[in-house]
């Protein structure tokens, strides 16, 4: 099988894990994303950054994964940042109410003195 409709790349930096999510995050690609993101979400020593600039599609499957990642980070009291969200993805985050949780997380990380992250798209 060769449909590269989706790709996920992990970049480890000194103080953070950055996950670049590209293409269509749907039921077919969910497992690939989960397999990479879940272990990284368990590392509370680093900030988790999920970079969505090249995400072209998401539905309840992907949104469900985001919710569980955010939950896990909250349990660990570890920071997570969702960055460069394309407008059409943001619309779905707003519609379903998950963006509230991102904002809450951001507040938490800011309170903790994390430096503000680049949000230019």
């Amino acid at each position, binding site marked *: 099988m060769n449909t590269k409709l989706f790709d996920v790349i992990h970049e480890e930096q000194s103080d953070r894990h950055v996950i670049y999510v590209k293409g269509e995050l*749907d039921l*077919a690609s969910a497992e690939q994303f989960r397999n990479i993101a879940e272990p990284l979400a368990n590392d509370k020593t680093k900030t988790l950054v999920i970079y969505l600039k090249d995400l072209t599609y*998401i*539905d*309840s499957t992907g949104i469900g994964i985001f919710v569980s990642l*955010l939950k896990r980070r909250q349990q660990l009291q570890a920071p997570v940042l969702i960055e460069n969200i394309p407008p*059409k993805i943001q619309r779905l985050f707003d519609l379903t109410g998950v963006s509230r949780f991102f904002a809450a997380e951001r507040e938490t990380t800011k309170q903790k003195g994390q430096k503000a992250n680049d949000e230019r798209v």
Partner: protein
Amino acid sequence: MKEFEQVVQLSIPAKAEFIDLARLSLYGVAAKMGFSYEDIEDMKVAVSEACNNAVLHAYDDETGRIDLRFEMQPDAIRIIVKDYGKSFNYEQEAKQAASLHHQSLDAAKIGGLGLFMMQALMDQVEVLTIDGTEVILTKFLNRNEGEHNHEFISSSSIQEQP
């Protein structure tokens, strides 16, 4: 195109990796009808949610199918997503379909967003549960918008993207 009803049908295996074909066909049909970019994006998600459910909940084995029917009406598209798997109590599930707006993160239930999103993204959602499940999604054409959104989009040009 004549104003009477035109129908396009697609049948795919009920497996996750085929759902993108439903989105591709929906895109082709909806663009032809003049739907706006945003409406098409909404419908793609709604149709995928219906297909996701057929894949996840309808069949026990790997041999089931999903039949999609795109009805191009003069002022609306009706998309029928049909599986032949086990049924469920739609009325009851529909009542529970909800966003996460009034939930806290630690209480947020993962899953159960599918029906909510279909309802939020389409103008009308009907579900029949006889011999499997039939989800009927309707979106009305707003003829005042979206007239310039689909120039030179083709299956040829897709492939030429980097």
